[in-house]
């Protein structure tokens, strides 16, 4: 327990330095959390901040095993984030993209889809792979850029996926892959398959042309795809108010004839309910745009400094709506959770992460020759010549 309390107490994100004297003249007023007044913001909820049913969206009444699995995954995802941050700050991982506060959306949406369904992943979504059976050590091997992970160390830490789990890695230009998901769904429809598709992206991506292309094509051709827009408040340093003048991101679906819904993204059961319904309706209704209203508690990446653009007061407003706390309270209200289980879970998560870190870090880096692989199905003479020359030049001299 001490281990777990200590870990959870580490404020690894949003560590606040005292501002230079006179730099900030007055603290701007802090807006209330929109989740506290869901009706005013058109946000659909299953539970309130204390894990009590609000009576708005119906409780999907998931089996006990599913509920505890979902919560356990949310905790593991947070523990991974805590460790990723420390590994980066201690120089063992080159780069980290934190996901604190964003545990609910991707885990709940993932279990709302079947394992044969395809998911186009964003980059704050380790839970999706784990829920589909990918071992934890494979994730850490990816974070460390090791040779023996599906993408052979070629991608930035957390830009993950795995075809064996039907999880497509994102193209890193955020939002560019939204029409890829739509096109893949369209292909399944053309082939007569029953596969459904889910694409995660952030609210910043909705400003890209690809978002509009995908919704436009989806409105016309009705592919079985769910567009899940995680509105986490900030696109790097840009707030939603500078991203769009629309009142919501969900309503952008109206312009394209795409059904849409706005849900509480820190309420995993609301996310599940909306996503599962969208998935089930997809063969008949085509696409759905879901806006999940949530908040990025952490930095954009380890190369970011949120102190330049937001206040600790704003973060504190959202702390009260922490998705982990709410889900835990929901489980406690149902008699499915208690302190000993909580302590045991954190201890297990940390032990599993320790083991995965040690195993992954010991794995070898990719061989230089491997960077030429997979450029084409068969390498061209041009690549073979460049590879041979590079390898010869990398040989240590006499």
């Amino acid at each position, binding site marked *: 327990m001490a281990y777990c309390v200590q870990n959870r107490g580490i404020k690894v994100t949003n560590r606040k330095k005292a501002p230079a004297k006179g730099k900030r003249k007055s603290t701007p007023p802090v807006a209330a959390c929109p989740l506290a007044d869901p009706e005013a913001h058109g946000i659909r909820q299953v539970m309130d901040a204390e894990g009590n049913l609000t009576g708005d969206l119906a409780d999907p009444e998931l089996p006990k095993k599913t509920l505890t699995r979902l919560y356990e995954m949310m905790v593991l995802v947070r523990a991974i984030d805590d460790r990723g941050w420390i590994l980066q700050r201690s120089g063992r991982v080159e780069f980290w993209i934190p996901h604190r506060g964003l545990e609910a959306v991707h885990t709940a949406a993932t279990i709302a889809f079947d394992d044969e369904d395809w998911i186009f992943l964003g980059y704050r979504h380790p839970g999706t792979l784990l829920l589909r059976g990918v071992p934890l050590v494979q994730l850490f091997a990816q974070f460390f850029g090791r040779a023996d992970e599906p993408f052979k160390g070629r991608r930035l830490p957390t830009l993950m996926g795995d075809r064996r789990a039907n999880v497509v890695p994102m193209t890193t230009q955020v939002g560019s892959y939204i029409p*890829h998901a739509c096109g893949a769904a369209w*292909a399944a429809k053309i082939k007569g398959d029953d596969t459904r598709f889910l694409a995660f992206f952030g609210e910043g991506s909705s400003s890209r042309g690809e978002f509009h292309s995908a919704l436009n094509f989806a409105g016309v051709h009705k592919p079985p795809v769910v567009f899940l827009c995680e509105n986490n408040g900030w696109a790097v340093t840009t707030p939603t108010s500078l991203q769009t003048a629309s009142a919501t991101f969900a309503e952008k679906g109206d312009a394209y004839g795409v059904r849409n819904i706005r849900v509480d993204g820190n309420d995993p059961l609301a996310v599940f309910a909306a996503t599962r319904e969208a998935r089930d309706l997809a063969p008949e209704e085509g696409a759905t745009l879901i806006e999940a209203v949530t908040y990025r508690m952490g930095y954009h990446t380890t190369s970011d400094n949120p102190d330049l653009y937001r206040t600790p007061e704003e973060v504190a407003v959202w702390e009260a709506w922490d998705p982990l706390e709410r889900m835990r309270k929901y489980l406690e209200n149902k008699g499915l959770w208690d302190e000993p289980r909580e302590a045991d879970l954190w201890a297990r998560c940390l032990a599993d992460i320790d083991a995965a870190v040690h195993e992954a870090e010991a794995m070898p880096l990719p061989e230089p020759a491997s960077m030429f692989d997979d450029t084409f199905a068969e390498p061209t003479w041009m690549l073979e010549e460049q590879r041979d020359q590079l390898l010869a030049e990398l040989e240590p001299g006499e």
Partner: protein
Amino acid sequence: MNVVKQRSRKSTMLEAINAGMAHELENDPDVVLMGEDVGRAGGIFRTSTGLQQRIGSKRVIDTPLDEKGIVAHAVGMALYGLKPIVEIQFSGFIHDAFEHIMFCAARYRWASGGQYSCPMVIRAPSFGGIKGGFWHSQSVEAYFVHHGGIKILCPSTPEDAYRMMIAAIRDPDPVLLIEAVPLYRAMSANFVHDGQPTEIGRAEVVRPGADVTVLTYGPIRYQAVMAADDLAESDGIDTEVIDLRTLIPYDIECILGSVKKTGRVVIVHEAPLSMGFGAEMAAVIQEKAFGYLHTPIQRVAAPDVPYHFSIGDECYRPNAHRIGLAIKRAMAFEF
């Protein structure tokens, strides 16, 4: 299929492209054709005439007007296992889709460690000579040859168009097919429509010669042959003209074989001069055959300005006269 029993058919470039797509659409249910106006109308050049009527609107698709969206959706289709043929109406409109061609389609295999791939064909109607001006006469190939992951083909005969189309559709990697708009209806040729693909990566010696090598591709190759024929008559210069046919991967054996024989090189393309495909040709020839060269490599290309509407076809686009001057420079140069 018994090739012997098949009659050869006279086809224009347009008909050959149509026949190549039709053959694959009819024989492979995973092939789809998509683009602006390609279905009901058969494309603005009519390259896909009748295909939607034969195959159906599910697989021959009229899309919204959105080049980026068309290619991006095709990328997704390819990831799932279809083989899309994407028509960009004019190559001058392709730039909006550049990211999805070069950094998505051409990168998915590498970036996924070989787990995913994007076999697809992007058709780019290109080149001048149609009074098209800036947006409708572009030669865009140099923008796409900078890194691997995509193959670049450029047919300039009806039979090449047919066999390259089939090869491109069957290729496991994305292929950019540079189509020659000025040749669509300019010629016809007899060949057997037997569904056989060409071998990607092979150049063709169009006109054998001993004195000087002209390396070119696309419709300008006919101007090169005209120049060679004229100079043979007027100056007794024996020019070899090579149609590269494939830009990535280019046929290094054919190129070096010719250069080592003639020792003089003229590179001709319609695209602008600076950092064009000719620059790479010149670089690789001097790296691999420096000792064989008798004179400096000459280039004939468009200037680094946009394609002019009213006088571009005559003054901007290289022609036989300018190619002839370059051949004479290559022959007469003295150190």
